[in-house]
């Protein structure tokens, strides 16, 4: 019920098309109910003995329908004129039906897809609001599926399932009422096939649909295994497994074919059954109706009307079971969307947060900071660190020690569990996120570029930058030259479906982005992967230019970088164990000095291993 309410919230923006849908649906049902009347009247006309007009007494009903055709005097008419007019009425009815069908189909889809678009917008907006912790334990695939597939269900529901249900119910009732007017007896007899139709529909959704789902699953499996195999083709060749794998694939192809054939066979079995249940109605009508006509208790035209209404009578029963199933399916999708939208972001802006005025000085202070991702597993404890504006601080320590986490606290990607982080004396939690993050540039080791042009990716730093500024930033980052060498220069598409850039090129784009942003604080994660010496020099130069005049926190790997820092912070476990300049730390001793002094300490151990192996190899030979 909650889901339904949530869903109806999305129809609010599309009231007008929905109302038009509803109205045209009602009218359409009416028109469709009128349709068979034309043939019925025609039958009446062609069957009536006009040879002796004096003996002819028109029924009240007939007079009314003649009046409807604009014929006042029933005795003055000729059958041909009625036929002509009936043709015109039929034409008008078909036209009306066309217009109404158009309105119903168009408007309901506009409303349905409109709701989908709205929902997607909301989901996206919401996803942007959620903090990084949310992304930590979520599969992007799952989010995507909610955003793309589940939101599609809104359309199913609004444009198909719900209107179909309403139309079918109305149609069934309408036909029943009309048939009742002709002959109670015959109408009850036509109800006979309905239990069979329901049974067939049930059976269809119980056996045939699962068989098709099974086929879908097999198809998915085949897809997955083929994908698996094609991406692992090198391994297959390396292990000379071509034949075994071909058998395995063949097996799946087989299974897919069999499941599909099974589904089709079931469908083919059901199809005649469904047809038969409908023809059952025809048989009942011909037999009993024929008798009634012969016994003169039912006019022929009414029997014809019965025939014409028959399909309109059974069709809704068949369609309803499908529509109900659709509703269930769609509701489940809507529920998943609703769940996602109810997720709360955990880094939220303080209601009375202030915008940091202008450009920050860049003084950063960690006071007693503790942080953990998971309760009971502290990543950082008792961190006290003061970074004066414009200083360069190098974070040193083994992988997994929390260097990146420490840096992530400054732009408030995560909130500290204890203590405070201050920027220019403000607790960062008291600042608006936008004004805080505007002060910080981040250049990470694995550079993330978006699918888009080179220019778009640089502009990411500052959207309103001019062309000159973009080029200037690229120049400072030593990126301009390789960019103009790309097929379309700054317009070259990069990312997943565009040109693939090398690690060094990506890095320089990230630097250009940061140059353009021109933030007073810089967080830098030094790359460990190796690029050729020339590129390395270019990157180094670019970074040095970028660092000028900014408070810089470097997650450092190279001793040369570390040595040139104003302050070196050594992290071990979850604590800061040493802090100071290179000189100070060297005199102080401890881990830092040891790091600098290890040279060939391990050499003997490896020499020993080498020797052992050599002996083993000889033994083998």
């Amino acid at each position, binding site marked *: 019920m909650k889901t339904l309410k949530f869903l109806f919230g999305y129809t609010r923006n599309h009231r007008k098309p929905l109302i038009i849908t509803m109205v045209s649906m009602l009218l359409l049902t009416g028109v469709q109910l009128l349709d068979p009347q034309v043939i019925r009247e025609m039958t009446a006309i062609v069957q009536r003995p006009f040879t002796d007009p004096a003996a002819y007494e028109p029924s009240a009903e007939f007079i009314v329908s003649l009046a409807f055709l604009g014929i006042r005097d029933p005795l003055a008419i000729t059958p041909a004129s009625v036929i002509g007019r009936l043709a015109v009425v039929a034409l008008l009815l078909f036209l009306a039906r066309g217009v109404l069908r158009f309105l119903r189909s168009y408007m309901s*889809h506009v409303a349905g897809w409109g709701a989908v678009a709205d929902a997607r917008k909301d989901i996206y907006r919401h996803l942007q609001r959620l903090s990084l912790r949310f992304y930590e334990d979520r599969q992007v695939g799952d989010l995507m599926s909610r955003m793309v597939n589940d939101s599609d269900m809104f359309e199913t529901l609004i444009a198909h399932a719900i209107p179909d249900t309403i139309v079918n119910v109305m149609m069934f009732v309408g036909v029943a009422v009309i048939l009742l007017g002709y002959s109670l007896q015959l109408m009850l007899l036509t109800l006979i096939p309905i239990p069979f139709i329901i049974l067939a529909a049930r059976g269809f959704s119980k056996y045939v649909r699962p068989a098709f789902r099974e086929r879908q699953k097999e198809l998915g499996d085949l897809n997955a295994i083929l994908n698996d195999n094609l991406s692992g083709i090198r391994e297959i060749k390396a292990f000379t497994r071509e034949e075994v794998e071909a058998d395995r694939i063949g097996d799946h192809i087989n299974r897919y074919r069999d499941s599909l054939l099974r589904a089709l066979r079931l469908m083919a079995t059901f199809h005649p059954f469904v047809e038969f249940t409908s023809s059952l109605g025809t048989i009942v009508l011909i037999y009993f109706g024929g008798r009634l006509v012969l016994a003169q208790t039912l006019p022929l035209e009414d029997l014809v009307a019965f025939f014409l209404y028959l399909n309109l009578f059974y069709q809704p029963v068949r369609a309803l079971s499908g529509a109900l199933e659709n509703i269930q399916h769609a509701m489940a999708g809507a529920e998943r969307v609703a769940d996602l939208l109810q997720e709360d972001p955990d880094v939220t802006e303080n209601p009375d947060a202030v915008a940091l005025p202008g450009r920050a000085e860049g003084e950063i202070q960690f006071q007693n900071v503790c942080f953990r991702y998971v309760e009971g597993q502290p990543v950082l404890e008792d961190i006290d660190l003061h970074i004066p504006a414009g200083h360069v601080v190098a974070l040193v320590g083994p992988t997994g020690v929390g260097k990146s986490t420490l840096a992530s606290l400054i732009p408030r990607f995560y909130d500290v569990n204890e203590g405070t982080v201050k920027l220019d004396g403000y607790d960062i939690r008291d600042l608006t996120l936008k004004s805080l993050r505007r002060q910080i540039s981040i250049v990470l080791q694995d550079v993330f570029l978006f699918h888009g042009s080179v220019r778009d990716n640089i502009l990411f730093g500052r959207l309103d930058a001019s062309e000159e500024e973009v080029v200037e930033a690229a120049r400072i980052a030593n990126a301009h030259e390789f960019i103009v060498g790309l097929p379309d220069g700054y317009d070259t598409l990069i990312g997943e479906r565009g040109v693939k850039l090398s690690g060094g090129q990506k890095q320089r784009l990230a630097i250009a982005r940061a140059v353009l942003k021109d933030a007073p604080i810089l967080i830098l994660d030094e790359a460990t992967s190796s690029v050729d010496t020339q590129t390395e020099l270019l990157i180094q130069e670019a970074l040095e230019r970028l660092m000028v005049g900014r408070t810089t926190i470097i997650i450092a790997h190279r001793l040369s970088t570390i040595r040139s820092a104003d302050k070196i912070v050594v992290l071990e476990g979850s604590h800061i164990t040493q802090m100071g300049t290179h000189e100070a730390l060297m005199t102080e001793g401890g881990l830092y000095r040891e790091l600098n002094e290890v040279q060939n300490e391990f*050499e003997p151990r490896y020499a020993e291993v080498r020797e052992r192996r050599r002996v083993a190899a000889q033994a083998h030979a």
Partner: protein
Amino acid sequence: MSSNSEKARQNPSDLKVLLRSFRYLRSHWRVTAGGYLLLFIISVLSTINPQFIRGIVDRGIAEGNMPLLTRLVLAMLGLTLLQGVLGFFQGKWIEQASQGVAYDLRNELYQKLSSLSFSYHDRTEAGQLLARAMHDVDRLRFLNGRATMRLVEGLALLIMTVVVLLLMNPRLALLSLISMPVLLVQAYWYSKKMRPLWRAIRDQVSEMTTWVEQNLRGARVVKGFAQEKAEIDRFDEQNAVWFDMVERSVLIRALNDPAVVFLTNIGSIFIIWYGGRLVIHGGLTFGDLLAFTAYLSQLAGPIRMLGRLVPFITEAAASGERVFEILDAESEVEEAPDAMPLPKAEGHVRFQGVSFAYFGRRMVLKDIDIDAPPGQIVALLGTTGSGKSTIINLIPRFYDVSVGRVTIDGHDVRDLTLESLRGQIGIVLQETTLFAATVRENLAFGRPEASEAQIIAAAKAAQAHEFIEEMPNGYATYVGERGSTLSGGQKQRVAIARALLKDPRILILDDAMASVDTETERLIQKALERLMQGRTSFVIAQRLSTIRMADQILVLDKGEIVARGSHTELLHSSGLYADIYERQLRPQEVEELLEQREASLARDAKRLRPAISGS
């Protein structure tokens, strides 16, 4: 109407492709022939059916002949049932035939793909191949099956119906059939117009999907640059573009459906108007009239189908072209006709004056000479793109050298059978592909006949046994895309175990490690040491420990060996080596040191504890 369909007819290559795809029906000729025979019979029955209505009305009801009425109704019922039964077999057989075609095509495609060389797979994306194997083959299946069936059915029904109606009443027939050609053209036009639009919508959706997906993956960057607002605006824009297209398609469809119904019904209006008059004047019976209506409603569906099939067939030809392109591709690495099997190798690997270029582009390797006597470890070092991976790919002959030769125990690898060559080379790559199968199957990948004990022994030696045991179903746990996911470190150990089980004389490995904790790293290190023991090993080295164990280190730059020697030698003689050392290897020393310190602290604590508790 048919500039395109004419093109399809005139373009011999399209026609050839279609004919070639039909050739696959040959091995399923029995069901195919049966299906089409039934199809013909059914069409005849469909043409007879409305005649019963005519009889029922004109002779049964009008003449008050009750027994005749009953007989006719029963006959009609029988006919409908017969049609249903025949329809069942017809559908089944045609489907069987077309599924058989798809089956044959997929098998053939897969066989071909696995025989094509690495360079082919380098050039083509796996996703694209997948699309061809699935999507394009499905189109051909549809073409071979239901598409052609409907085409024939539609034509047969059309011809027979027209003949019967003309015989019944030529003028009424012409009047009532007047809208049929329009219907045909309309259906053609519609699917011609809609297909590109649908494709555009699909493309836009996948564009948006890719974009959002990247955005979510890059959430850190978006937030770091405080760009949420701009991103939302961009999304809204894309979303609006999508919605516009959808709205257009919805509009076309909403216009089309009623138009089709209207066109179909035009015939009925003529039947009412002209037919009604004829009945009154005695030129036609009422039963004839009803039969006419029945014929018309029976024809509308197949006619529309015909219109829709024409654009489909052109597309199917394109699909066929894509499929046959793969089937016709030639492999660049072919076994020599007189290839001989490599006898149990000693493992002496030599590169003699080897140069290599990928499909005729610039040289990736220039004049490489390597001599690796049995049991040696050769470490390859260099920046990305320096040619390290190319060197190791040449040994199992994933590619053929452009100049020079690679020999194993003096045999040129090109003179050996691929199976015997690759059977003696173990490979552990950085990105280990595990297949969607159980852990056991993945381990036994190189030696399917390995016993359980052997598998476990290999897993133990690779330090993988413990974590495998801890998985939900142990060795029977499903891994891969849809199973349990293994961490990078675990995958690596499975790959090592796989190579150990194969017990090759020559080993190729990339020792780069996914970011793993120190403990895991130590385990992997140990496993690697065991693996390399007694084998000729070529290692793309990222680990200091591996480099220190190597007998010779080759430093590569831009496809050339710029320095070779031992660690200490190179540290002094090669600037590039010193740089790589500083950047990659040095930080590892830091960690090793920390590890040692922690260990010694723990030892101290152990030593001190009894002393404290003793006092």
